[in-house]
């Protein structure tokens, strides 16, 4: 049996189920309790779990990120919500310099089973300081995992796995997706970290994407199909670990590859995936990989500019045509 629920409700179900299952799990962050979450993700959770486990904080990102790490060191399993990943920059030393290294530096004494989660990415006309795509900035740090769910089904399945994971997991949601509905089973399910999936099937070109830009990929694939170019759209689902095997499998079938990433082009997830595809599929490729990114500017505030800046369908169509010599 399935139901149709919003992405935000899927996130809440994942947290609530894990909190019922495991007393060590708690949720902390700005506005998560009384306000039911700045984006209403934790609706009803204060009522069910009480202020002992659903905790409003002062506006101190370093404070609650660091507190969470300490609590994790003692064996609790914190879920730390950043209202926006943009605000995680305040807490960079805690989340990058402490959480992913504690196990390593303590010779295995202090696992950090923590989830940092919140909205990531531009597109909501929030201005450049509130529109960060942190994946390329953070994913390079060894010791952390990173998931970036595409729809309600993945949001729930991936988050439950992330909460049970014994490592720090950076969970990148999208404010643009919170209200989108999708089918979610009644029964419990988990989605492993590091397993890509196919969002659309086609043999002419592989488009690899993560999170919200996959919607642009699907829009582009639709347009391309109308002119006879059928694309595989591969959703990586997690950036760390990266399921390069599934991506390579697709590329070996299509012989062409476009990578779509909402980060800036320079030193990005897109650059990393393209490099790995070249390494794994050099003999199968009939052209080099082409990357589609956000333009190399801070997210503009004005609506028209922001839409242009994103790795939109126009840019993806253009890239697929160029890579398949269809131009």
């Amino acid at each position, binding site marked *: 049996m399935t139901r149709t629920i919003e992405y935000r409700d899927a996130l809440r179900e994942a947290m609530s189920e894990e909190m019922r299952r495991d007393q060590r799990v708690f949720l902390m962050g*700005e*506005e998560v309790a*009384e*306000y039911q979450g*700045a984006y209403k993700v934790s609706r009803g959770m204060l009522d069910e779990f009480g202020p002992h486990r659903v905790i*409003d*904080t*002062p*506006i*101190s*990102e*370093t*404070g609650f990120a660091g507190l969470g790490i300490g609590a994790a060191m003692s064996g609790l399993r914190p879920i730390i919500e950043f209202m926006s990943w*943009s*605000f995680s920059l*305040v807490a960079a030393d805690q989340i990058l310099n402490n959480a992913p290294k504690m196990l390593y530096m303590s010779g295995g004494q202090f696992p950090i089973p923590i989830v940092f989660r919140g909205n990531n990415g531009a597109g909501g*006309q929030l*201005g450049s*300081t*509130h529109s960060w795509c942190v994946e390329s900035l953070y994913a390079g740090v060894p010791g952390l995992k990173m998931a970036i769910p595409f729809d309600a089904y993945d949001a729930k399945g991936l988050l439950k796995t992330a909460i049970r994971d014994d490592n720090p997991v950076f969970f990148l949601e999208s404010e643009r997706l919170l209200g989108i509905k999708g089918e979610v089973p009644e029964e419990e399910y988990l989605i492993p970290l590091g397993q890509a999936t196919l969002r659309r099937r086609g043999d002419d070109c592989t488009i690899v994407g993560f999170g919200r830009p996959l919607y642009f990929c699907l*829009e*582009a694939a639709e*347009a*391309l199909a*109308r*002119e006879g170019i059928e694309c595989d759209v591969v959703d990586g689902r997690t950036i760390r670990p990266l399921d390069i095997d599934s991506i390579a499998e697709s590329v070996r079938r299509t012989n062409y590859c476009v990578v779509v990433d909402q980060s800036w*082009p320079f030193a990005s997830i*897109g*650059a990393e995936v393209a490099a790995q595809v070249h390494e794994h599929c050099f003999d199968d490729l009939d052209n*080099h*990989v*082409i*990357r*589609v*990114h*956000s*333009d*190399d*500017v*801070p997210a*503009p*505030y*004005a*609506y*028209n*500019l922001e839409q*242009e*800046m994103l*790795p*939109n*369908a*126009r*840019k993806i*169509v*253009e*890239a697929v*045509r*160029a890579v398949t010599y269809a*131009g």
Partner: protein
Amino acid sequence: MPVRTVLNTTIEHVSILDEDGNFDADLGRDLIPDDDAVRLYEHMSICRHFDEIAFKLQRSGRMGTYPENRGQEAASLGAAYVLRPDDWLVPCYRENTGLFWRGLPMEMILLHWMGDERGNQIAADLAMTPQAIPIGTQLLHAVGLAWASKYRGEDRISCTFFGDGATSEGDCHEALNFAANLNIPVVFLCQNNGWAISVPTKIQCSAPTLAQRGMAYGMPCVQCDGNDIFAVAKVVRDAAELARTEHRPTFIEAVTYRLGDHTTADDARRYRDQAEVDAWKKRDPLLRLRNYLSERTLWDDDREKALAARAKKEVAAAARRAEEIADPARTDMFDFLYATLSPDIEAQRSTARTSSLGVDPTQLDDARSSGIEEAV
């Protein structure tokens, strides 16, 4: 005596024109001359109307989001009134009255909240920084601006505004520590409006005052009635004097109240009592100043009517200017990226393609790209 007291301290609260209309003639002497009091009242009223119009623009879908300033008009205005025109104003987002008093055109704030970078393109001679949206970051900038004044041997100071919530950020504490230890001429003006979105001040601070945050870093600190423009003017004037002559910072807690929602995306009825709001309505800074003026026959109903008409006209004109501005051109987003653009970014700018295409984007012909737009 093995145990002795090493610090005993008090925090003063300054009130000059209280909510019942009592005026402390001693403290208030020579603070705000009558004609200025009239001008300040007029300014606050126009800003109150501006707030209403901005709110309506948002509700009718013509503006993204807007944080009402209602109820907090006295704090930044009292400060801007006593500061020198070249002293830095380093605001957050509830300082419209002070910024407009300094000379910021009203349409700039509207443009900002309509989602247009040009709303932050503030003329240099206004000596103010863009509204700080990442909470608390601007306190350190104020410290740096004032430090630079001192470095240059100038006697400009800076005054920064921030909320009760912002005092929980590390940036705030580091700013206070720097300013106190390095003798940097900053006035820290905390608008304690009782709430940070849905979080009451007691969750940010367990001490009885926010003012004492300054004490912990060794700087003078004072609390004032933030809805009393006389009190604000007095404490900021004293703090500015200390900063200018002795390079010493001051921490001011202006006790005020956010009469509106946090922003238009919020509904405060869900988390706070109407009784609390009603009690604060009686302490409205506009009401108080108007009564003060009326009692001194400086104000009457006719003037009030004329003012309402003027406010309507001025705000409508500002709204028109904000709404009539043409959309920015696609290439505008590259304009202020670097002092001069590097060739790869210049190519992105001129072709509307990222450098990641793997081919020189200028080599792709334009006919093809327009075909692409049709296809999508």
